[in-house]
């Protein structure tokens, strides 16, 4: 039997007598070795411990599975073992947590409230039928927010996985032409739908057609297509501002005028260039004239 052994060290000058006693008591000895003069060591099977006690031998150490098994079954370890085994059996019988896997925080929060209300802490574990019912309820309740739903129970935890509902709103198609709202030179074309009738670096005037809803196919037939997009162009502006000469100190005049002009610039444009055209005194007034090159979307729907 190789399940477990006790290791024993004895001190005797009459080993033969000891062996005789061992034989009389039907004890088995394994690996008898002489450690020192009159000191011997050997192993005995754990199941013969009662003989060891009878012979008043001292166990130095023990090895093997049986040894650990006996350790576990001893007091007070037996209580911990029973508690551990009981927890393994009892814990999966109750629900003590939920795990929701989804990206919509609002839905997650509502799901948690819903679960806490319907399945309180330490509720008995759900049957397949109850899980199916829960699935149907959640699917109905969150039909607008959830597309795919999966509910399963793993031990004492209910797992809920879902994917967000795809936005199925109908898009209204637009068949208007897009025209230029200002003069400019085309620098960027960002058109999703429609027939683009201008090229990059092309100069366009206000009212020129940029995106058309008509396109001619290879069969020479004209088709009507929806239009959508943005066309960016370099546009040119001049701003002129004047103040009374005596109003400010000499050093602040230019900065003040520049600041005033800049504050009047449109906000939805990107400034490409800024240039001072003139800075003069005309009729006792300081006059600043600036030129700007903007990059802006010039495409607007034709009405």
């Amino acid at each position, binding site marked *: 039997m190789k399940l477990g052994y006790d290791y024993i060290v004895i001190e005797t000058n009459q*080993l*033969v007598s000891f*062996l*005789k006693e*061992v*034989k009389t008591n*039907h*004890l*088995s*000895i*394994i*690996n*008898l*070795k*002489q450690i020192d003069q009159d000191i011997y060591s*050997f192993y005995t099977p754990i199941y013969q411990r009662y003989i060891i006690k009878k012979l008043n031998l001292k166990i130095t150490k023990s090895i093997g599975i049986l040894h650990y098994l006996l350790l576990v079954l001893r007091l007070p370890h037996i209580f911990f073992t029973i508690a551990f085994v009981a927890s393994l059996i009892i814990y999966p019988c109750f629900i003590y947590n939920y795990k929701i896997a989804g990206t919509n925080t609002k839905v997650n929060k509502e799901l948690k409230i819903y679960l806490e209300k319907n399945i309180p802490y330490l509720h008995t574990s759900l049957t397949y039928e109850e899980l199916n019912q829960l699935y149907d309820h959640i699917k109905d309740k969150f039909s607008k927010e959830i597309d795919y739903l999966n509910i399963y129970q793993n031990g004492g935890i209910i797992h809920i996985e879902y994917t967000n509902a795809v936005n199925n709103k109908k898009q209204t198609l637009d068949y208007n032409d897009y025209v230029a709202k200002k003069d400019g030179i085309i620098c960027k074309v960002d058109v999703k739908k429609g027939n683009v009738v201008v090229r990059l670096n092309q100069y366009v005037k206000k009212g020129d057609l940029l995106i058309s809803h008509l396109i001619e196919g290879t069969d020479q037939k004209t088709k009507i297509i929806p239009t959508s997009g943005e066309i960016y162009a370099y546009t040119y502006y001049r701003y002129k501002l004047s103040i009374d000469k005596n109003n400010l100190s000499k050093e602040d005049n230019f900065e003040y005028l520049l600041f005033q002009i800049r504050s009047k610039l449109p906000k939805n444009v990107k400034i490409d260039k800024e240039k001072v055209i003139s800075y003069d005194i005309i009729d006792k007034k300081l006059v600043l004239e600036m030129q700007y090159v903007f990059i802006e979307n010039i495409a607007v729907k034709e009405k």
Partner: protein
Amino acid sequence: MKKLSLSYIRKGGNMLYIQKNKILIKHYQNVMTLKENLFECTLDKQIISISGNHIEIRYYGTDEILLYGQFTQIKMT
């Protein structure tokens, strides 16, 4: 299956299995001498003396003894 390196002597109710460095004695009665170079035990009506080097008991049971070592001589008296 027959082990080629194993031989045995059967005399009366006793049995002796001999391998290269192992000797198994069945149905022994008492150990008389246990030294590093000599082992003696009584059998039913005989005494068996085993001489050699580094003799040690690998297994000591109620009815059998397994010896390990470098054996040089076995005497039955």
